[in-house]
């Protein structure tokens, strides 16, 4: 099933592009001659050319190097935010769905309360409270993103709990622990994977938003959001300073979204059989 998904060319292209982004951003200075934070005021605001492929910014820093570095920071934030998201979301959701009773009611109450507050408000408050910075951004994002994940997992667990195959396993003498570990939780993985795939672009976008309003990554470090916000200031005169970071961000988010869609498709068609393919 996964192999079938890989055969899809668009998905393949996305995977390759994401891989490329990851390699280049991790490799960073191995591939490029410029440091992202080295200033060269004589070269300030030059357009794309041979020396600086994507041009330079108002302090003469190489835009390509800064974008590559920005991808690294954005991906790091997205990765850790998603990690927090699915870990906490899965734990809370499955505990709530499996235990039921008072624990479930309490957790659902907490989730409902969080659900009523605009998520960005919480993120902004958290980043202000924790001081802006890479680590605190992904902590704040992770702490907000897990709420819908937990609800989703809880719903999934409750549906699976009542399905005939759980009853059959129980009637074949399986104990509660084995039923949980072998029959209920593995069936939540598709939902969890899909959530994770969609949570990465969400986190990237959220980070960009935070950086644009000034709550994100602090200078001189550059995330894609910081680059976009810098580019915006001289958008009319030096459009490339804004255009390239935006293009990069868009491509990155698009790739992850296509990947998430493909995963979702793959798992739902697997569960429902042939009829879904027509």
């Amino acid at each position, binding site marked *: 099933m996964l192999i079938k998904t890989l055969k899809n060319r668009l998905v393949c292209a996305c995977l390759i592009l994401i891989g490329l982004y990851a390699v280049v951003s991790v490799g960073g200075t191995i591939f490029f001659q410029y440091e992202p934070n080295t200033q060269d005021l004589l070269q300030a605001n030059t357009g794309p050319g041979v020396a600086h492929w994507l041009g330079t910014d108002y302090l003469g820093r190489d835009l390509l190097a800064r974008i590559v570095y920005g991808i690294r920071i954005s991906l790091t934030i997205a990765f850790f935010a998603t990690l927090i998201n699915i870990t906490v979301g899965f734990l809370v959701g499955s505990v709530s769905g499996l235990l039921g009773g008072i624990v479930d009611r309490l957790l659902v109450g907490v989730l409902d309360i969080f659900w009523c507050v605009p998520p960005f408000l919480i993120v902004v408050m958290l980043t202000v409270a924790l001081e802006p910075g890479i680590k605190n951004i992904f902590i704040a994002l992770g702490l907000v993103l897990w709420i819908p994940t937990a609800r989703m997992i809880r719903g999934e667990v409750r549906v699976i709990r009542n399905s005939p195959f759980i009853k059959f396993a129980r*009637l*074949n003498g399986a104990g509660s622990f084995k039923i949980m570990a072998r*029959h209920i939780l593995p069936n939540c993985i598709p939902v969890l994977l899909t959530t994770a795939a969609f949570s990465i672009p969400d986190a990237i976008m959220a980070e960009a938003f935070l950086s644009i309003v000034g709550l994100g990554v602090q200078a001189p470090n550059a995330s894609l959001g910081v680059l976009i916000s810098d580019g915006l200031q001289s958008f009319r005169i030096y459009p490339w300073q804004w255009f390239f970071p935006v293009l990069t961000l868009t491509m990155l988010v698009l790739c992850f979204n296509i990947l998430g869609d493909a995963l979702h498709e793959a798992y739902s068609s697997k569960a429902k059989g042939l009829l879904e393919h027509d």
Partner: protein
Amino acid sequence: MIDVADLSVSIRKDKAVIPLLKNVSFRLGPGETLGIIGESGSGKSLVTYALLGLLNHTAGLEGSIAVCGCCNLLKAGRKEISQLRRQKIGYIPQNPQGSLTPTRKIKAQMQEVIAVKTGLRWKEAANYAAELLVKVGFSEPGRILRMFPHQLSGGMCQRIAVAMAIAGKPEVVLADEPTSSLDLLSKTEIMTLLGKAQKEYNFAMVLVTHDLGFALKYCNTLAVLYSGRLVEMGDTGELCFYPRHPYSKSLFGCFFNETQERQSALFHGEPPVFNNRVPGCRYFACCRERITACEVQEPVLVRIGTGQVACWLYDGGENR
């Protein structure tokens, strides 16, 4: 082997007590088969659930069930019940494809069931699984073991369920409409398998079914449920050729002789809803032979011939 006495199940809804099953009793020895027939919603599955200890947490549970040396299943604890399910009782589900976990291969699922039921190690369990698959008619067990449930047809899944049920050499097999979701060929295949397995292991079987043909062929005793009441029970041959209760009459009449006349007589009034508490016979609204006594009081099960029937027409034990 199985001794069910006065089993009643009721639920509480808005302070009213709704009986879902009332005073069901039967006995079954090794190698014997009891067929439970009756329309959908009459409580057939509930009987199997009670036998599996699934209803034990329910409040409105009365009577007693003795199965395989467990004197009162309805009072048994968790441990005792899971012991029973592992070693004594095999269960065959109604919906075979939905009853296998979609994310696991057949091999892992069978290994798990076998390990739990027989105590074999994981690797030995795989060999036993292949052996069982051959027994239920697969010629290439290795290939089947590597598959996921959604790659198999309903009939194949049901055969796997049969294999799982007989893995622990059970003393009792409960089959809840094992053939109702299958095509005619697979139905026959599954019933043949069950018959063969019964000969081999000599287990007592409770067969819930809508297929009267199979009921006649495989059951020693038949029990007719209507609206949660045992309305008639008796020797298969006698009950199907000389049904006494009006409901059984129309059921078997319909089965043996589907003339226009009979069919029109079948749909006569509407069956009762569980929560309306009529004082009289539950079948009153649909019955073609009702008498005035029927509306006032509910008939009780009386012995007549070799069987039992609950109908005011036979109150004196005589066929009028």
